[in-house]
C-alpha cells in the first residue's frame, strides 16, 4: 500500500526541516522531498501540519509491569529471587494487551524498548517492540535481545537486603557483578561445557554482542560501573544518569551513551535527590553524544516523553538535540538507527503528524503510522491520553 503525505512541515530530525511531501510504500519511506509527483493509493493533505519520525522510548516497563490490574500477580518486572538473573528475558514477561501500549500509540511512540527492572545487579535481557497493535505480539518484536539490564545504587541494596540478605551495600552489588563476569569467563575457557543459560547471556555482554545498559543515578555509581567495565574491557551505556551533570566531562571523554530520565518525579529516594532538568543540556555542552530521554513508564506515564524533551530544551538542551533525544538517539542507543528514528529514505515508515510543533506541549497527535499503516487516528479514535 502506498500513501502520500502532502505539503507538511517535515522534520527529518537528521537534517533541517522543510515544507514538502513524503511518500510511503510497502511500509517504508520511499521519498521525502519538496515536491513528489508520484501517484499513491491514498494521500493526506497535511498543509499546516508537522511530520516527525515516530518517537522511540528506550527505557520503559510497559506490559511487564502489568498496569491493567496493578496486582502483584501481574507484575513481572523484577525477578528478585537472586541478584544475578542474566538469563531471564523481558520478552517472556510482557502482557501484550496491557493499556500502556495504546497510551503509547496515542502519544506517537512507535517503538518501545522494554527492560526488566532494577532490583538485580544483573536483571535480564530487554526486548524492543514495534508498537503496532494490529499485529500479533510475536510480529511486533524487532529485537528479541535488545540490551542487558544491570543496576547499581539503592535498588539492589533494598531488594536483596530484604530478600535473603544477599546484598547489603554497594560493595556487594559490585562483588556480585564482578564474580558473575569472572564465572562467565571461566565458563568460556572450559573445553567441555554443558550449556549454561546464565553464563551464555553474560558472555554475550563480555564479547560485545549485547550492550549492557546500567541503571545508575548517582555519579559515584556511574563511576563505579565504569571502573568495573574497564576491568573487563567493555563499555556500558547508562540508564537514568541522574547525576550525569556532575561528571559530564568524564562521560563525554569516554563517549558513553546516556539515557536520562524520568525528568519529573518526586525525589522519592535519596539517589535522585540531585535530579535536575538541566542534566541533558549540561551533558550536551560537555560533548556527550546521542543523549536519550526516557520515561521509565509507568514511573512517569509514556505521554511525558515529548514533554520531557520540551522541558530539557527549556533548561538548556538545544532544540535539535531535544528532538533527536526522543527519535534518532534512542535508535542509535539500541543499535536500530539503520531502520528507525528519522524520516530518511528506506527507513521504516514510522511517522507522526501533529497539529503544532512536537516540542510545544499542545502539539496534539493527529496520526501515528507504524510500518506505513495508520496505527492511530485522532479523528477515528478521539484523544487517547
Amino acid at each position: 500500500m502506498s500513501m502520500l503525505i502532502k505539503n507538511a512541515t517535515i522534520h527529518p530530525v537528521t537534517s533541517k526541516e522543510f515544507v514538502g511531501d513524503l511518500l510511503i510504500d510497502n511500509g517504508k519511506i520511499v521519498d521525502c522531498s519538496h515536491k513528489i509527483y508520484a501517484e499513491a493509493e491514498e494521500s493526506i493533505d497535511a498543509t499546516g501540519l508537522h511530520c516527525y519520525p515516530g518517537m522511540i522510548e528506550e527505557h520503559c516497563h510497559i506490559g511487564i509491569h502489568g498496569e491493567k490490574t496493578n496486582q502483584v500477580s501481574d507484575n513481572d518486572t523484577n525477578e528478585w529471587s537472586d541478584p544475578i538473573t542474566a538469563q531471564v528475558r523481558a520478552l517472556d514477561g510482557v502482557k501484550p494487551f496491557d493499556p500502556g501500549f495504546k497510551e503509547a500509540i496515542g502519544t506517537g511512540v512507535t517503538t518501545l524498548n522494554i527492560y526488566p527492572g532494577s532490583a538485580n545487579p544483573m536483571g535480564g535481557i530487554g526486548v524492543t517492540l514495534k508498537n503496532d497493535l494490529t499485529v500479533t505480539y510475536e510480529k511486533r518484536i524487532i529485537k528479541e535481545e535488545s540490551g542487558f539490564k544491570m543496576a547499581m545504587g539503592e535498588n539492589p541494596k533494598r531488594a536483596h537486603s530484604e530478600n535473603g540478605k544477599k546484598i547489603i551495600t554497594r560493595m556487594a552489588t559490585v562483588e556480585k557483578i564482578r564474580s558473575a563476569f569472572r564465572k562467565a569467563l571461566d565458563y568460556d575457557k572450559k573445553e567441555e561445557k554443558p550449556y549454561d543459560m546464565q553464563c551464555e547471556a553474560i558472555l554475550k555482554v563480555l564479547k560485545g554482542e549485547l550492550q549492557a545498559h546500567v541503571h545508575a543515578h548517582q555519579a559515584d555509581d556511574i563511576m563505579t560501573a565504569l571502573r568495573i567495565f574497564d576491568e573487563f574491557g567493555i563499555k556500558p551505556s547508562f540508564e537514568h544518569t541522574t547525576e550525569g551533570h556532575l561528571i559530564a566531562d568524564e562521560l563525554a571523554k569516554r563517549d558513553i551513551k546516556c539515557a536520562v530520565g524520568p525528568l519529573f518525579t518526586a525525589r522519592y529516594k535519596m539517589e535522585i535527590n540531585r535530579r535536575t532538568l538541566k542534566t541533558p543540556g549540561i551533558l550536551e555542552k560537555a560533548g556527550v553524544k546521542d543523549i536519550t530521554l526516557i520515561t521509565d513508564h509507568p514511573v512517569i506515564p509514556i505521554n511525558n516523553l515529548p514533554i520531557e524533551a520540551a522541558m530539557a530544551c527549556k533548561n538548556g538542551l538545544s532544540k535539535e538535540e531535544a528532538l533527536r533525544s526522543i527519535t534518532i538517539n534512542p535508535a542509535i542507543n539500541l543499535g536500530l538507527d539503520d531502520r528507525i528514528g528519522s524520516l530518511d529514505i528506506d527507513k521504516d515508515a514510522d511517522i507522526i503528524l501533529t497539529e503544532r510543533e512536537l516540542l510545544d506541549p499542545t502539539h496534539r497527535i493527529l496520526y501515528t503510522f507504524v510500518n506505513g499503516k495508520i496505527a492511530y487516528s485522532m479523528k477515528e479514535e478521539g484523544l487517547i491520553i
Partner: protein
Amino acid sequence: MRTLITNVVVHTMTSEPFKGEVLIEDGVIRETGYKVKNRETIDETIDGKRGLLMPGFIDAHSHIGLNPDGQGYEYDDTNEYSDPVTSNVRSLDGFSPSDISIPEAAKGGVMVYCVLTGSANPVGGLSFIAKYSKKKNVKEMLIREDNGLKMATGENPKRVYSEQKKMPVTRMGTAAVIRKFFFDAKNYIEKKKKAEKEGKPFTEHDSKMEAAVMVLNKQIPARVHCHRAEDILTAIRIKKEFDIDMVIEHCTEYIKVKDEIKEAGIPILLGPIMSSRSKVELRDMTFNSYRVALEEGILFGCMSDHPVFPSEVLRLQAGMACNYGADEAGMLKSLTIMPAKILGIDDEYGSIEEGKKANLCLWNGHPFDARSKTIWNSVDGFLEE
C-alpha cells in the same frame, strides 16, 4: 460374554446419532446398527428404555484422587512445591482410588480421566490416564502411565515461589526455569551419548532429566497450564524453541490468541469456566471460548480441573457453552472423541465404534439437561434409583 443393548439412541460421536442397538463382546464393541446382525449366543440383553447411549466422558485435566474432596491436607498430594522443577514425581504415586468423587464422576458420565499434578511448579510432574472401576485398586483403573509432563506458567508458580524467595517470582523467571530445564536435558543427552561412545557405563541417572528427554523426543507432550494470553504465547515460543509437542491447559484467554494457537497447531483443554474468577489471571474468563474453538475447528477438550469444578457436573459446563452459542454436537465431542485424541487414546476410547472399548453410559435424557441422569453404565450396570 456377549451383551446386547437395545432400544437406545446411539450417540457415536463420529457419525450422526441413530436409533438402534449395540453389541458388546468381552468389553469390546462388536457391532452397532439399527438391528445388529450377529444375534447368536447373546448372554444378556439390556433394554435401554429409549435412553441415550454415549461413550463415557473423558475429563482430560483432573486432579481426581490426587486431591480427594473433603479430605484436607493429609490427602492432598497435588503440588510437590519443595522445588520449582519436580519432573521426577508422578501423579500416579499420589493417587487415591478411594476418593468419593470417583463414583460421583461416573454418575455424571465421566468414566475416563487424565490425572495431572498441580500448577505450583513451572515443571510439575508426570500424569497418567485412568478409567472408572469399582475396585479400589489403581491397577484396575490404569489406562496409561506417564502420558504427559505437567508444566505451569502465570500466577501460581510466582505466588508459591515468591513466598519461598526462590526463582521464579516473575513470568520471566518461569520461562527461564522451563528453558533451563530443557537446556539441562540436552546437556544430559550429550553426557549419555558420550558415555556410550566411550563404551563406559552411564552412572549419572537423573529422573528429572529422563522426563525432560521424553518430552524432547516427543514421546509425551508438555501439558502447560496457561490462563493469560502472554502465558500462552510464552508456551508457544518454548514449543517452537525446543520443537516439542504441547497441550495448553485452561487457555482462559484463548480468544485473544486464537490465531497464534491455530497456526502453532496446539490442542487445548478449555476450562474450568464454570467457577469463580478466584484470581487475577482469570479476569477475562468467558464461556464464549468454547463456541470460538468450535468455529475455528481446532482440537480441544472441555475439562473440569476437578475438584476446582467437580468432574460430576462437567457436562453442565459443556451445556452452558451451548447457552453462549456453541454447537451441541460439537460440545459432546469436546467431552469424548476430542479429548481422546488429545490424550492419544482414541484407538480405544471416545466414541462408539466397532473395536473400541465398551466404556459406555446410558442417559435418560440429554446430559446437558441438569435433570438428566445416567441409568446404566458399562462398569456398574443399572444404577439404583
